[in-house]
């Protein structure tokens, strides 16, 4: 079987298997084992099957497209000089488009220009992401099987207080959890495999819904249901921008597919429908970014119409003149705003999904969901979908859009890191850390580091999910999220402490410079290097590099603050410390697996197999070289990513990374491990700053005041109008109708019924009266006859004057 169909079959099956699990648990969940216990294994089996299929797909891919050990992300066994020549050798190849397979499984709708399909676009990035997502999902499924054991029996939820007093007592929802988890896996894999933006959008929303289900798993808690609603609504705000982007693309270009598709025209010839990637970066011109014809025509619509009017009777002349004028219009700058808006629109969706500024407020609240949810959905996968889409859509993004992305990333990075400095809930710290790291990824992509950003995505997935699972283990043992009550747990929970230490070291990018490091070391290094190269190429944007470096310092500080507060020192709450215990094996095993992955994910193995090299295979066409462009913010030069791996930039970046991380860890140790400086004193000294940070920059309050309050005002106005005016009118009409009805009833009762009754009474009384005539006395009857006769006779004789005879 050829590679394309094999890959599509493998990945298609991997994608659909969790759906089967979802349907199975949907119908039979509570009946699977006692209290639905086996639902976990059904779900896990499905995701393990997906993992196997993904690994098989990876194997197929590597067999067809062996990885070349060329990219400089892994420094294992490469000398400096070999970089230059291998760099040269690589250059021509990067000009070509990456190997990608695409196709359609099922056409949902085809009408006119619009063709909506369920299809695939498989390149190295897809295969890699499949493996990463299914691997992490497997670990988390196994972990959750142990973590959620509380739901196997009736639960008393102490955070829900009933109106009549007492706490909520409800049956367990074990199978429901895995049902939602399976659906989520299906949706996430759908985004990864999607071949067109419409399919991405469908599964984008599906993932949002699954997130809503999972955050609101403990839905009786007001905080949880509010958090779920907040997540969904904030995501939808981003999706609004995404829809605008989709409309711009479809309206101007007529297609939403990434890759070209070949279809058979009615006359038998093969018709090539160009996809977005080749429309924006056509092969002729070396895949340089240019405004596509459709958008130029869209922008110059008036002139186009004029041409067709001028040549109304000769359409061929019109077409040729149109073609000749197109390049003129393009050089005038027609249609570039449309491309800019398309890019910004798609990025808006990513802002919402990946919790960037200003739509990041939902992610910390999403910690209301169970910890496995936080680990899978809100650290490793769903929030990464935004970064993934930016990566997938990278060729279509103009330098202006990329600059916007970089700045948004930088702002997000900074805000989140500062809030994490003072957060006391262990999961909140990790949540803000996630937001911050996502900002890192966006920044990396924005400054042109395609491989760097996605590399960080992969490594972050591993160590963030590891950190979350460890925190879940701690919460499970201590029954509290509050770090102020923890401390000194390292002895009681050695495995958790050790794996969490690995995770912390990974996130700060610990390692021996220029030699070896954990996974975060390599990815962070790449980001720093690219940011440095960018700020050197565009000195006006130096702040991007400062943000990255400063962020690294803050990251190191708050992560080790977390570790020291939780595991080191003296226990602050003895009750908790006494009852703390290591988690069961089913929960510890995934921690270990993820810790191992967090260590090795950045390495390039012999034969060249490594994440960075794999990603290099999927590098979008035309992005290997440095490019200059942009009109909105003045010119922007995006340096080539290769350049940042050599020479002084690389050295400076590595040393900066090491230095900032070291300083951060040292500061954290000073304040939280050795207690030389008291955090309370520092907080007091910088009171306003502390309050500002502890209040989370007051974003929630700001949004509440700016958006929620006016909407509530309008709503109360509308409801007031509805109640006061409309309801009054309706009630008035009803009252009038009732009064009329009452009047009618009175008429009916008194007059009509009265008339009828009076007639009846009169008849009755007449009958009663006349009855008295019938006395039964025969003599009386005779008397009446006689009287009647006499009377008649008298009358007749009076009235008729006629003779009686003759």
């Amino acid at each position, binding site marked *: 079987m050829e590679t394309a169909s094999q890959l599509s079959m493998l990945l298609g099956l991997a994608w659909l298997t969790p759906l089967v699990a979802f349907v199975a648990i949907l119908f039979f969940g509570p009946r699977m084992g006692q209290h639905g216990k086996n639902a976990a294994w059904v779900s896990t089996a499905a995701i393990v099957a997906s993992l196997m299929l993904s690994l098989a797909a990876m194997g197929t891919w590597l067999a067809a497209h062996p990885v070349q050990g060329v990219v400089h992300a892994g420094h294992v066994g490469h000398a400096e000089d070999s970089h230059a020549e291998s760099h040269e050798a690589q250059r021509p190849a990067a000009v070509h488009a990456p190997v990608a397979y695409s196709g359609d499984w099922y056409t949902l709708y085809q009408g006119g220009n619009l063709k909506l399909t369920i299809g695939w676009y498989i390149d190295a990035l897809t295969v890699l992401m499949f493996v990463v997502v299914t691997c992490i999902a497997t670990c988390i499924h196994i972990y959750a099987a142990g973590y959620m054991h509380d739901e196997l029996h009736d639960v008393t939820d102490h955070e829900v207080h009933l109106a009549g007093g007492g706490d909520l007592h409800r049956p367990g929802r074990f199978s429901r959890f895995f049902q939602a988890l399976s659906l989520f896996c299906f949706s996430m894999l759908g985004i990864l495999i999607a071949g067109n933006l419409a399919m991405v959008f469908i599964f984008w929303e599906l993932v949002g819904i699954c997130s809503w289900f999972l955050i609101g798993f403990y839905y009786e808690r007001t905080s949880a249901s509010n958090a779920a609603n907040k997540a969904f609504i904030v995501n939808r705000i981003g999706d609004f921008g995404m829809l605008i982007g989709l409309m711009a693309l479809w309206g101007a270009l007529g297609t939403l597919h990434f890759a070209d598709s070949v279809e058979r025209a009615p006359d038998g010839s093969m018709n090539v429908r160009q996809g977005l990637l080749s429309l924006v970066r056509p092969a002729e011109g070396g895949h340089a970014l240019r405004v596509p014809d459709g958008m130029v025509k869209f922008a110059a619509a008036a002139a186009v119409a004029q041409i067709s009017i001028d040549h109304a009777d000769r359409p061929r002349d019109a077409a040729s003149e149109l073609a000749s004028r197109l390049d003129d219009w393009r050089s005038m700058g027609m249609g570039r705003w449309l491309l800019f808006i398309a890019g910004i629109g798609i990025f808006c969706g990513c802002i919402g999904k990946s919790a960037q500024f200003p739509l990041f407020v939902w992610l910390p609240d999403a910690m209301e969901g169970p910890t496995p949810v936080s680990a899978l959905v809100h650290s490793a996968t769903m929030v990464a979908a935004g970064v993934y889409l930016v990566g997938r859509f990278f060729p279509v993004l103009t330098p202006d859009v990329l600059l916007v992305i970089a700045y948004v990333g930088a702002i997000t990075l900074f805000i989140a890191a500062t809030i994490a400095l003072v957060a006391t809930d262990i999961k909140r710290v990790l949540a803000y850390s996630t937001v911050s790291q996502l900002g890192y990824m966006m920044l990396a992509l924005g400054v042109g580091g395609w491989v760097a950003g996605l590399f960080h995505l992969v490594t972050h997935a591993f160590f963030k999910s590891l950190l979350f699972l460890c925190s879940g283990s701690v919460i499970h043992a201590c029954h509290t999220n509050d770090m102020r009550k923890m401390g000194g747990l390292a002895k009681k929970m050695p495995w958790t402490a050790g794996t969490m230490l690995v995770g912390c070291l990974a996130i700060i990018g610990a390692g021996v410079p220029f030699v070896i490091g954990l996974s975060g070391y390599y990815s962070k290094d790449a980001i720093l290097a690219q940011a440095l190269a960018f700020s050197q190429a565009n000195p006006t944007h130096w702040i991007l590099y400062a943000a990255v470096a400063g962020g690294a310092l803050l990251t190191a500080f708050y992560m080790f603050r977390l570790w020291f507060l939780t595991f080191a020192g003296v226990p602050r709450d003895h009750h908790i410390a006494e009852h703390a215990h290591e988690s069961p094996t089913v929960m510890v095993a995934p921690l270990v697996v993820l810790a191992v992955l967090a260590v090795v994910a950045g390495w390039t193995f012999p034969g060249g197999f490594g994440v960075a090299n794999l990603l290099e295979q999927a590098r979008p066409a035309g992005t290997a070289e440095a490019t200059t462009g942009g009109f909105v913010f003045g010119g922007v030069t995006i340096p080539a990513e290769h350049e940042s791996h050599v020479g002084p930039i690389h050295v400076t970046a590595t040393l900066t990374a090491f230095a900032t991380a070291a300083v951060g860890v040292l500061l954290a140790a000073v304040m939280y491990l050795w207690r030389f400086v008291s955090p309370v004193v520092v907080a007091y000294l910088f009171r306003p700053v502390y309050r500002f940070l502890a209040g989370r920059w007051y974003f929630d309050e700001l949004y509440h005041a700016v958006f929620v309050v006016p909407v509530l005002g309008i709503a109360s106005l509308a409801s007031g109008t509805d109640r006061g005016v409309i309801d009054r009118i309706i009630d008035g009409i009803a009252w009038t109708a009732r009064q009329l009805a009452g009047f009618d009833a009175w008429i009916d009762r008194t007059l009509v019924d009265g008339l009828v009754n009076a007639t009846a009474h009169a008849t009755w009384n007449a009958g009663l009266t006349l009855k008295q005539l019938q006395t039964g006395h025969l003599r009386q009857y005779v*008397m009446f006859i*006689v*009287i009647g*006769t*006499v009377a008649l*006779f008298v009358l007749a*004789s009076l009235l008729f004057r006629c*003779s*009686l005879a*003759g």
Partner: protein
Amino acid sequence: MIASMMLAAINWHSVLFLVFAGLACAFAVAVVVADNIVRMAFYLVLSLGSTAGLFFLAGAEFIGSMQLMIYVGGTLVLLVFGVMLTAQAPFISIKTSTNDRVLAGVVGAALLVVLLQAAFSVEAWRRPGVGEVANPSATPLGMALLGVRVDDPPAGTSPSLVRSGYLLPFEIVSVHLLVVLVGAAYLARAKRRRTPRGIETADVAASGGPR
């Protein structure tokens, strides 16, 4: 002289009429006035007998005979039978209340006045007639009953008028009488007699009510 003159002037027809009419009226009134049912029956017989006389005087000899034979000799005898059958002691004289009698008297008087007024109203009836019948016989009546009219039409009757016979009524009356005979016989057959309402004899009470 005057007597013979008077005697010669006396219209014996009128005298006899007065006698019979007086008897008839007197006895009719007597029927009304009498209380005793048996006496009432007797006075009725006399009244109807006098009426028969009136009939004879009016020239309807056959009718008068039939009156005497059928009416007086049959019907009234039947009535007398009835009287005799039901003449128990309490029933012989049942008195009516005075109110009823006064009222009846007034009504009867009014009726009488009306009738008399009618009788005296037609001038033509007050003129006495002097018609003579050539051969008074019952043949015309008998023939009429058979359906053939042989009597002279009354004066003034137009000759084109067809006068019908009385055959059909004759037959109908015959059947009618038969039916009446059968019906009366059936109606008046012997049945168990019950004690009258309100009148309880001692032995009935002792035996616990009507049997």
